[in-house]
């Protein structure tokens, strides 16, 4: 009887350990695949994320919308550690809303040469990406109907 009890406790502990381990294994965003078509609402800023080998120095990105380069934006690293392939995710946020339309977007990241101060853009942009900017969904009702009469 006592042996069965010990065995049950052991199995329960093992199950708890495995569950904890599996919960800790969150997927890395650079392991995901993404399409080339995205949609945001007209009230939102466009948030652009991309992946690069962790060995590369990234300082910012230039977003091209419909053939026009926007101002360079400083990039922030989104993942403190790389995935198994050695990639980390970076992000820029366009601090301007885009008009309600279908836009074509390219992305060029860059770094600043610490020796010369010169901005070094990647020669090969990512894109094109289709970005649809649409109306925001109507706000949901916030309170119950009032003055209900049944006749």
């Amino acid at each position, binding site marked *: 009887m006592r042996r069965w009890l010990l065995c049950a406790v052991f199995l329960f502990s093992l199950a708890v350990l495995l569950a904890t381990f599996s919960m800790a294994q969150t997927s890395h965003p650079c392991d995901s695949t993404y399409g080339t078509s995205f949609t945001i609402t007209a009230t939102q800023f466009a948030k652009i994320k991309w992946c690069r080998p962790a060995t590369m120095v990234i300082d910012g990105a230039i977003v091209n919308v419909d053939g026009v380069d926007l101002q360079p934006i400083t990039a922030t690293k989104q993942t403190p550690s790389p995935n198994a392939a050695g990639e980390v995710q970076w992000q820029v946020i366009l601090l301007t809303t885009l008009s309600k339309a279908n836009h074509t977007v390219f992305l060029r990241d860059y770094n600043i*040469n610490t020796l010369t101060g010169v901005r070094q853009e990647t020669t090969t942009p990512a894109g094109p990406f289709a970005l649809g900017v649409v109306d925001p969904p109507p706000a949901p009702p916030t309170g119950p109907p009032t003055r209900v009469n049944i006749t």
Partner: protein
Amino acid sequence: MKPTVIAGALLLFASTAHAQIVITPTTAVFTPSTDDAMVSGYRIVKRQIGPGTVTLLLDIGKPAPDPQTGDIAVDISAAVALLPVGVYYEAIVQMLNPLGVVIGGNSPPSNAFTNGGGPGPPTPPLSGPPTRVVITGDDSG
């Protein structure tokens, strides 16, 4: 009269200097002796802060002083680059007679300086396009 070391001038690292410590100085500037006519040359020696042993940094001959300031400026970047990184020194100027013998005593010491190891290698340029691009809406807008 003793020469006076007035600065370890620098170009690149002024903003990162700790108080009066100059990181990787490029130039030493000093006021020559009033007995400059009797001097055959100047020598810059260094003294490690702490242990205090004086050793040669650079024999500079007898450069002409700046006609406007009267100071002598010497490029010491090559000599500083040979120093071990992270060791702190102060510089002293000595006067030499024609036989190369130190005469007249030492200048007061300069501000502290150290070889910071240089500006490091240039940032490598990026190659290839960004990958796994995703665009989402940010609601802070």
